[in-house]
């Protein structure tokens, strides 16, 4: 089992003032390392509208490279605008995953629209930044990864990586909408696509990680990290029904692979679980693993899927 030392909650959106678009939530953290600081992207929400509905934006917080629990600066505005009327990202840009490519920073993000029979649909958009990741320009006003016969809806949670000479995109694809207590809840599984250019994608077209707790287990945040000759995937999973509390809420799982395609799940190695009390006592979710000055960190969400912010843990030992 890996051993993670929890460093506590690092960022609390409720502490930030003067930003109407940043009132609650700091979801799906994603790190980009700079010379003196680490830019951690997250997704947040203004207050809900009169009908209780949210939109979501993505933004970043810069933390001290020498002590990543110390906040230096919060972005003054969202990194992406919401889409125009009828576009796939009209109601949200969540989550975002970034990677450097030459002098640019690339962002892949989940775009949200609202539907009539189910609450939402999600598709993956693509944008680039030429100002070190402060603002991003969309490559088009439609998604970069289309729906296909076996991936009919809810394509979201992108994680972008570049290994060798190939771009890899891990993401989730909706399998079904399951009606629970009269309300449709999405079941989604971890999938992968690869691309020579990050624009034209070939889907692997199968579930990468077996379901463990039930057939309709929902899996999210497939975060892949290369270390000691292996690819390590940390992700999160939950039950399909009544998952908004401690018993059936998100936990962090683990799988590893030698070829990026075949993955062996072994959640007993993940090494991070809910705490007895405090901000992550009910759930742990949306892991993101990154290396900083020869130490490995995990950013993750706690209770209520990041409503009150994200935290950090530091690996003791190595991933093998």
């Amino acid at each position: 089992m890996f051993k993670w030392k929890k460093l506590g909650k690092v960022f609390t959106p409720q502490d930030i003032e003067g930003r109407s678009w940043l009132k609650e939530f700091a979801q799906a953290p994603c790190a980009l390392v700079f010379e003196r600081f680490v830019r951690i992207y997250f997704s947040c929400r203004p207050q809900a509208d009169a009908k209780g509905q949210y939109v979501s934006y993505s933004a970043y917080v810069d933390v001290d490279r020498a002590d990543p629990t110390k906040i230096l600066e919060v972005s003054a505005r969202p990194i992406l605008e919401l889409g125009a009327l009828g576009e796939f990202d009209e109601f949200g840009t969540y989550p975002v995953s970034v990677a450097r490519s030459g002098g640019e920073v690339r962002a892949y993000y989940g775009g949200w629209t609202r539907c009539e029979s189910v609450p939402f649909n999600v598709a993956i958009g693509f944008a680039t930044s030429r100002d070190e990741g402060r603002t991003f320009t969309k490559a088009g006003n439609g998604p970069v990864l289309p729906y296909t016969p076996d991936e009919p809806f809810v394509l979201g949670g992108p994680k972008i990586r570049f290994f060798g000479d190939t771009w890899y995109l891990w993401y989730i694809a909706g399998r079904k909408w399951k009606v629970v207590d009269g309300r449709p809840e999405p079941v989604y599984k971890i999938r992968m696509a690869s691309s020579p250019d990050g624009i034209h994608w070939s889907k692997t077209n199968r579930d990468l990680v077996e379901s463990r707790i039930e057939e309709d287990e929902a899996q999210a945040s497939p975060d892949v990290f290369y270390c000691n000759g292996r690819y390590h995937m940390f992700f999160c999973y939950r039950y399909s029904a009544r998952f908004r509390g401690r018993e059936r809420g998100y936990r962090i799982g683990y799988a590893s692979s030698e070829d990026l395609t075949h993955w062996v799940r072994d959640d007993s190695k993940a090494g991070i679980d809910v705490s007895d009390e405090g901000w992550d006592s009910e759930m742990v979710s949306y892991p993101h693993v990154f290396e900083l000055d020869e130490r490995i960190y995990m950013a993750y969400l706690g209770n209520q899927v990041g409503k009150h912010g994200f935290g950090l843990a530091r690996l003791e030992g190595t991933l093998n």
Partner: protein
Amino acid sequence: MKWKKLGKIFDPTKFDLPGGCAEFAQSPQALVFDDFVRIYFSTRSVDKANGKYLSHVAFVDMNDALREVIGVSRHTVIGLGKLGCFDEHGIFPMNVLRHGGRVLGYTCGWSRRVSVSVDTAIGLAVSRDDGRTFERIGDGPVLAASLREPCLVGDPFVRVFGDVHHMWYIFGTGWKKFSPDAAPDRTYKIGHAVSDDGVNWVKEEGRRIIEDRLGADESQALPSVIRIGATYHMFFCYRQSHDFRTNRERSYRIGHARSDDLVDWTRNDGDPGLDVTEGDWDSDMLCYPHVFECKGKVYLLYNGNEFGRYGFGLAVLE
């Protein structure tokens, strides 16, 4: 070349259609058999939950002179999609063709949205009983929104020329409120994709293959292609993007373009042209053309007034 109108040939209100469908026979599409022609169309039931329409595929079999109805389908030709799927709220239209010993149905699936009324995508279904029923290959679409085709991918028309599957279809360029109180209206244009297998498609990604005649706010729909001699002919319909439902000056008309290479198309709506007929069933609108060949003749199926609420008609090429 000149179209000769043969009049309205099918009125859905005179037949018992399945699933509580009473009106509409939209976007007729032909599958020619040895001694009869099966014409698929989209008809409508009313969603009990909210009074909105649901489009369903049905068909009518007609004799090969296309004058006499042999029978109409009384079963479910293809069911609607599952909860949250792209074709949950309707299939309109479905394009059918024979290929590889099977009948393929390319569907335009509809699902409702909140800020705008709808989105569409293109699915594939296969029939193993000669076009009586169809089963989809998956819950999701084979052609959907992409970087430069952001919404409303629909109206497929597929033909195999040489070894290549060609699909002509439409994609939305965006939604717009033309006045502050108006519901959002969409604009769409005709695009093209190719495929080796009919499942995996490569789009031209946002290229509008037919030039606008009414300007940027022209909406183009339902491309239909036939080869006559060495020339490919496309028939489609076009209209203004708003105030097009009841204003006959802005409603659908039939357009035409020709190509020698399936790449460059030259628009020439008048040659051969088809126009509205004063005082007749198609006096205000002409839409959803479908061109096909039967017993050595080239026919055009199409809808008239009210988008086909009271059926479809036929013209023959002279």
